[in-house]
């Protein structure tokens, strides 16, 4: 009987090697392990064994059964893995073919610049203030220390609706409206659309965008202005950016400055972007003129403040290398897709 069992195991070992399909395996299983299978047949003869032999043969029979099961299982796995590989081969793709396309919208480059600036100043505790584009002359000029007779008020620069109503030429009137209605501390930026009577060309547009900032509180200094603009310039143009103040004149700030950043393209060495200067002018800034504070009912003996402004179009053009301002308002898909 022992011989029979070993014989069966030997046969299974041999036949398992030759199986070609899952059906072959099933046949093998039925043939040896099935109810009428060979192993079952052998085990049926156990009753004829002696008391001593029975446990020994029983143990052996179990071992043989386990071995057979293992063999069948291995054969099965082997076959499955072959079949899988065949399937994988069949299903092989050309992964270099293009992927499916999904329509994606793109933010306009002006939005990209505005959001970037907004995010820097939101992080510094500023709020975003807005105001009307069609504005009273009082807010656009008078309150900003630009009096009757000042060349900036000329019709050749400003669009008028009525003698005392105009299309705002700057977002500064928003600052006046905020100062009139808010007790310091005031920390705002004012992004918005502004208008000047410039004919359309590669560098001019009668409609453009500005972002201005205003801080008013006790003890605000010109050093604070410098520190703030340094943080801003580094966030916008990189950690190694330097800034430079040049004296200038604006009616609503005193002292006033034009602010240059070290060229982001050449790090100040001089290149096409900065016209060899190493610096690119990006901002106008200054300490809020005491008269402007007084116009808004804020006492310049107690409070002081600073203000700054930048042109969104000019910043976008510099940042993205756009050489013609008209592209920003033409909205050609092939242009918009690039941002």
């Amino acid at each position: 009987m022992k011989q029979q069992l070993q014989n069966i195991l030997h046969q299974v070992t041999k036949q398992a090697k030759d199986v070609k399909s899952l059906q072959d395996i099933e046949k093998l299983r039925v043939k040896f392990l099935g109810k009428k299978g060979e192993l079952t047949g052998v085990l049926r003869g156990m009753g004829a064994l002696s008391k001593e032999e029975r446990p020994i043969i029983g143990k052996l029979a179990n071992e043989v059964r386990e071995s057979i099961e293992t063999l069948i299982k291995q054969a099965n796995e082997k076959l499955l893995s072959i079949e899988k590989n065949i399937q994988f081969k069949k299903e092989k793709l050309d992964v270099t073919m293009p992927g499916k396309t999904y329509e994606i919208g793109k933010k306009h480059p002006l939005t990209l610049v505005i959001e970037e600036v907004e995010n820097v100043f939101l992080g510094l505790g500023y709020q975003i203030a807005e105001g009307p584009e069609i504005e009273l002359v009082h807010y656009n000029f008078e309150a900003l220390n630009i009096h009757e007779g000042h060349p900036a008020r000329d019709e050749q620069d400003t669009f008028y609706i009525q003698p005392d109503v105009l299309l705002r030429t700057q977002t500064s009137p928003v600052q006046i409206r905020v100062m009139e209605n808010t007790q310091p501390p005031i920390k705002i930026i004012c992004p918005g659309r502004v208008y000047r009577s410039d004919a359309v060309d590669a560098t001019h547009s009668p409609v453009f965008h500005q972002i201005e900032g205003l801080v008013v509180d006790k003890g605000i200094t010109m050093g604070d202005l410098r520190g703030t603009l340094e943080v801003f310039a580094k966030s916008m143009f990189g950690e190694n950016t330097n800034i430079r103040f040049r004296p200038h004149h604006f009616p609503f700030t005193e002292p006033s400055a034009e602010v240059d950043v070290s060229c982001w393209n050449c790090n100040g060495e001089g290149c096409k972007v900065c016209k060899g200067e190493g610096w690119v002018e990006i901002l106008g800034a200054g300490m809020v003129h005491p008269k402007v504070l007084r116009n808004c009912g804020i006492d310049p003996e107690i409070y002081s403040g600073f203000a700054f402004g930048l042109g969104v179009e000019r910043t976008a053009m510099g940042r993205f290398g756009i050489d013609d301002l008209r592209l920003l308002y033409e909205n050609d898909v092939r242009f918009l897709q690039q941002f």
Partner: protein
Amino acid sequence: MKVPISWLADYVEIKENIKKYSDMMTMSGSKVEGYENPFHEITNVVTGKITEVTTHPDADKLIVTKVDVKTEIIQIVTGAKNVSKGDIIPIALHNSTLPNGVIITKGQLRGVESNGMMCSIQELNLTVNDFPLASEDGIFILPENTPLGIDIKEVLGLDDTVVEFEITSNRPDCLSIIGLARESAVTLGKKFKLPSISLKENGNGSVSDFIKVTIEDYELCKRYAGKVITDVTIKESPLWMRKRLRDAGVRPINNIVDITNYVMLEYGQPMHAFDLDYLQEKHIIIRRAKEDEIIHTLDDQKRTLNSRNLIIADGDKAIAVAGVMGGANSEVNNDTTSILFESANFDGVSVRLTAKQLGLRTESSSRFEKGLDPYNAESALLRACELVEQLGAGKVVPGIIDCYKELPDKKIVPFRPKKMNEFLGTSIDDKTMVDILTSLEFEVNMEKMEIAVPTFRSDVEAWADISEEVVRFYGYNNIKASLQSGNRATQGIKTYEQRIRDTIRDTMLSMGLMEIYTYSFTSRKVFDKLLLPTDSPLRKTVVITNPLGEDFSIMRTTTIPEMLQVISHNYNRRISKASFFETSHTYHPIEGEKLPNEKNVLTIGLYGDSDFYSIKGMVKTLVEILGINNVRYTLDNDNPSYHPGRCAHVIVNEEIIGTIGEIHPDVANNFETPKRSYIGELDIDKLYKLTNVLKSYNGLPKYPEVDRDLAMVVDETVVTYDIEQVIKSSGGDLLQYVTLFDVYRGEQVGENKKSMAYSLSFRADDRTLTDDEVNKAVAEILLKLDSELGAILR
């Protein structure tokens, strides 16, 4: 302002190289736009003397010359007619360069070697105004005693560097050599050499023998000073003066006119010279013009004046537009023998408005309009007389005419060093401040802690201005950066409306729409192109009184035209499909209000590969994200700009919040867009109010849904909204979702009929539904569909 460095050097020592000087001036507030030698293009051109002239063997019109350029004798072939042996002329040698990119190399002319070129004044970019004795159409023949082999730029004084300054409008005093010399001196730490004037005044008689002056309007003319010159000889002014004028961008004319221009540039005080012989009654009257009074100005134009214009008149007629331009009738000419120099102070605003009205902005008016120092008028006048004596142009008559009511005192402002340091964030000591201010000619009184402001600095009014004066020389970039340390904190946060606009933008982007920016003004013509009736409220617009042109003349009341233009632009560039959105404003006048209503609108535009349901789906997605429920769409067959069968109102709570649809084919035609273009305009201000940002969680279902599909045949006229309303109202609590999944038209359903297939989902929260329950609900739905809409189950 263009400034020759040599001119500045009369009043301040400049040792720095030009780059360093320019940088320093820019950093102290006098911005240098650029600098150049205007004649830097001329190289390798030297003086040479013709030593031999022979005929050309093969050409009648050419001659062969030998020219001595000191280092060698060279042969030059020329066609010039005005040269002869012994002439000294500018010679462009082999490999020389001339203005406008001209390069001269040696070559052959009709077979004879020529090793250079003789130059005319035009070839050197000069005119007879620069060198009156030069031939206008021949070679430039230099004076006999000119040394040979010398660089022509040196000989003609073309080697000066000219610096161009950008002067801000608050500093008219810097529109002058003297003003910039003063700034240069403080910037460079040098002494400013104030010019001192000495006059011989060897003319006969006294000024009052020659002329009387009356100011009728002291408001517009604060001061009128004049001096008389007799025995005038009109000729060209000397080379040095012509050279400086030319470098500063002023054309030399004759000695007297050149002197007035020279003094204007040097002192910043515009001047004028009248021919005394042409002044009627020997009387100068400064008055407002009469209505329609006519003056014939120097530029040979007849100009009509009005009572807002200040003029200079003689006893009879207008002889100059004050501060703008002189009249032709009293112009200095070659026969002039006696003149009156005018040096006056006119009101800036008046001069500016007059110049604008006449379309005549001159060097003079652009200085006056910024407001000049009345004290400067006298110094400038004396300087002009000094130049007359120096140039031998005439005899200065003793005495001065000087009319004014009162001249302003120096402004006194408090000196507040502590406040200034606190304001600037600096700790500049008093002495440094005082030194800077003193060198700028401010007088600081430390006892009274007061500063007297020089009269030429009308821009300085209070301590903030003084701070700027100090800090621009202390160094803007020496201010230490700080960040409002120790101040009260503020919250950086967007408003509710700003966040909703962000959400709208993000949603549109996520659906593949490109963001656009378009102009806010437009033309009235767009209303016709949109087929709007004449009484359409959209035609009530905010009108620009001085637009750039009709196309930009009104503020838009709808954004559709600009969207259609963008679609057209792209479509006409063979872009087969695109989708856009814009968040912007429209502007609507309000009766009785100064300022209009500025509405926030969202505009959507699609073409190619899209249909009505594309744009509807986008709106659906948007309102869903904004948490707005109960949105209804109703056919709007009344909007002239849209296809009458493909336009819908978007309605929430019985309020129209927008319109979407296919553009009317005629409108598409008018804007040259594809016929199937889809436009939507949504009112963002209304979306603000409807948006529900509060989110709350409902438990996930514990029991399964049971789905039933049903297809029914209805009349073509029955709309989906009505079918769904019937299903929803009759489906009871168990009905969860109603989804249309197929619409079929064809023979099988009959003419003017359609088959609508819906999938319905039923569920209860507390049990698994039985078939019976669902069947009952479906039966109820079918019954109602039949009775209310005549729908028949297929």
